[in-house]
């Protein structure tokens, strides 16, 4: 099936009433939780996972995807109007967005971030659609060593890119691997770290882990230390940017789309990373860098475009290789597995409806969000006025309910609380939890492919991986990422030494 034909097939799936409703619900819920500080897309998807079991799989995924990119739209609203990022990817939008709002230009800031999000999101979906089939076909030829090398590369990127420091990120990722190793081992049936507890034989569930760390941890943190909420600025009447705004934003949007997509497909390339990098790039290339921080529209347009482009880009590795690049995508992977679909190169061949249905729904969702966001922004801002004192117990209730309902297990609720405490501590001490969750998901795949590769090698020599071109290149890349700071340090010392000797000589 050629791409255009397949896309039409996808639209036929996405445009059924049920799926259209799922796109709408997803986009709507996503915007709401994006607006609400403290409840991000990860916690929301974890909460909804039990409900999706009863839904049709494509419908469930369409809704989950909608929540994810909807949250990116919603997150910018609070950044601009209240100076509180609704979620991590909108942190940089606060810098210039809030300044614009204070100068009475909240309308153009909100409008431009919605248009930028739309353009970045849509262009990125086009790229996902064009690249994925090619990538899946390549990945079909992968054996265990290639898969291991790819996963290892992903592991290093996740640990190295998402942590506060490289070593800390990698350590958290290693803890994730260890948590993933708990339970009965697949090959020999040995119980590992179960302490004789039946519950642990199946391993720790992703849902209690993610809900605990991202949902409950955040709430507990807010209970221990409540931050003062800033004044909500007046909701603007018109959101339309001026011609001058468009002229200044055109290039940042174009660059943000490219940058965002590129970062989105790299493991660990979270939307938050994309928006941060876009801001840095725009400030550097701008002819008016002094305006940044004082309400430069480029500082809103670029990052808001980039985070949406990265959101869509993340679907490439998820749908073609079965590798989630961030915790939200890890939960979508979990949803697919709950429905008996194994994400990976075979997804396009065996479940084309899943792939093309979700892709087509993303085109629809982006249009819907633009239409939804521009006139309804006032309504979304009203949500911010619900007192946190009511919201927080309700979120706790949903977390407990979600944890219990997935498998009717009290032990899952207890596990959620334990990881909630862990999440609280991480937040309290500034330790980034994302590498832990991602490595937890990748761990079993890594182990499985490593064992298979070693058995295949007959010698057990790790150099075996370098005797095959693809795995050799991927592992070399991973090592390069790992030792890059050391290389840079040595290079700088060498340059300094050379210039010093040049001066003295």
């Amino acid at each position, binding site marked *: 099936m050629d791409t255009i034909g397949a896309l039409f097939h996808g639209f036929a799936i996405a445009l059924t009433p049920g799926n259209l409703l799922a796109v709408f619900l997803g986009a709507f819920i996503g915007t709401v939780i994006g607006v609400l500080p403290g409840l991000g897309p990860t916690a929301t998807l974890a909460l909804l996972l039990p409900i999706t079991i009863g839904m049709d799989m494509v419908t469930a995924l369409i809704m989950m995807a909608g929540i994810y990119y909807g949250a990116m739209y919603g997150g910018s609203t609070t950044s601009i109007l209240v100076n509180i990022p609704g979620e991590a990817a909108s942190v940089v939008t606060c810098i210039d967005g809030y300044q614009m709002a204070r100068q009475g230009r909240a309308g153009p800031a909100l409008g431009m971030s919605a248009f930028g999000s739309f353009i970045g999101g849509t262009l990125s979906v086009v790229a996902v659609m064009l690249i994925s089939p090619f990538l899946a076909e390549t990945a079909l030829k992968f054996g265990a060593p290639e898969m291991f090398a790819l996963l290892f590369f992903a592991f290093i990127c996740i640990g190295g890119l998402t942590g506060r420091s490289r070593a800390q990120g990698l350590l958290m990722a290693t803890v994730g691997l260890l948590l993933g190793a708990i339970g009965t*081992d697949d090959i020999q049936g040995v119980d590992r770290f179960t302490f004789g507890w039946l519950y642990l034989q199946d391993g720790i569930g992703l849902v209690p882990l993610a809900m605990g760390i991202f949902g409950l941890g955040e709430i507990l943190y807010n209970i221990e230390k409540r931050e003062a909420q800033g004044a909500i600025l007046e909701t603007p009447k018109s959101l339309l940017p001026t011609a001058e705004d468009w002229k200044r934003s055109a290039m940042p949007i174009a660059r943000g789309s490219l940058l965002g997509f590129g970062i989105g497909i790299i493991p660990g390339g979270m939307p938050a990373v994309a928006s941060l990098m876009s801001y840095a790039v725009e400030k550097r290339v701008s002819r008016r860098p002094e305006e940044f921080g004082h309400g430069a529209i480029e500082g809103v347009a670029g990052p808001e475009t980039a985070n949406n482009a990265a959101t869509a880009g993340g679907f490439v590795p998820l749908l073609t290789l079965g590798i989630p690049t961030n915790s939200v995508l890890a939960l979508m992977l979990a949803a697919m597995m709950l429905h008996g679909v194994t994400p990976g190169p075979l997804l396009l061949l065996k479940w084309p409806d899943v792939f093309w249905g979700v892709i087509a729904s993303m085109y629809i969702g982006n249009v819907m969000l633009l239409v939804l966001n521009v006139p309804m922004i006032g309504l979304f801002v009203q949500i911010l006025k619900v007192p946190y004192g*009511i919201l927080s117990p309700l979120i*706790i209730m949903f977390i407990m309910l979600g944890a219990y309902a997935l498998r009717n297990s009290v032990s899952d*609720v207890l596990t959620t609380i334990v990881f909630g405490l862990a999440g609280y501590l991480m937040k*309290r001490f500034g330790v980034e939890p994302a590498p832990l969750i991602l490595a937890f998901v990748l761990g079993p795949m890594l182990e499985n492919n490593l064992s298979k590769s*070693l*058995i295949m090698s007959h010698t*057990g020599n*790790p150099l075996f991986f370098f005797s095959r071109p693809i795995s050799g290149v991927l592992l070399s890349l991973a090592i390069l990422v790992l030792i890059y700071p050391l290389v840079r340090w040595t290079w700088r010392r060498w340059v300094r030494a050379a210039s010093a000797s040049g001066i003295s000589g």
Partner: protein
Amino acid sequence: MNVDRFLGAGAILLAIPVALASWGFGVGSPKSPGAGFWPLLIALVMAGLGLTLILRPTPNAGREAGESRWGRFGISLVTLLFYVAAIEPLGYLLATAVMLLAQLRWVESRSWRSSIAIALVTAVVSLILFRVLLKVSLPAGVISLPRGW
């Protein structure tokens, strides 16, 4: 105390029992790895990273000023543990209502009247939404629910 140093020390302390346990699972050889091979590898990497963090820690992340509210934090944890213990014997409705009431009244300091009202309404509405409409199985417990719920 530096967070990185603390994490590093914790990682090394954790790596030792993990390595010992892995040995017990059967490490095998690189040619035919046993069940303990992978966890042993993890333990070694963990210890190495722990050492790196102790030797080259990054400074702590700053935290915005503001008072800590340990009392509320403690009450919140107690209500969560109560929920774990109560959901099956008491049932979803009762356990949820009590947990919400405690959270609203003592953690969020709302008035008795609004706490009771919000807790009851939320518990009933969520039961109808999830158990009746979405068919998520939730324990009925001591309260006999209407037929068909």
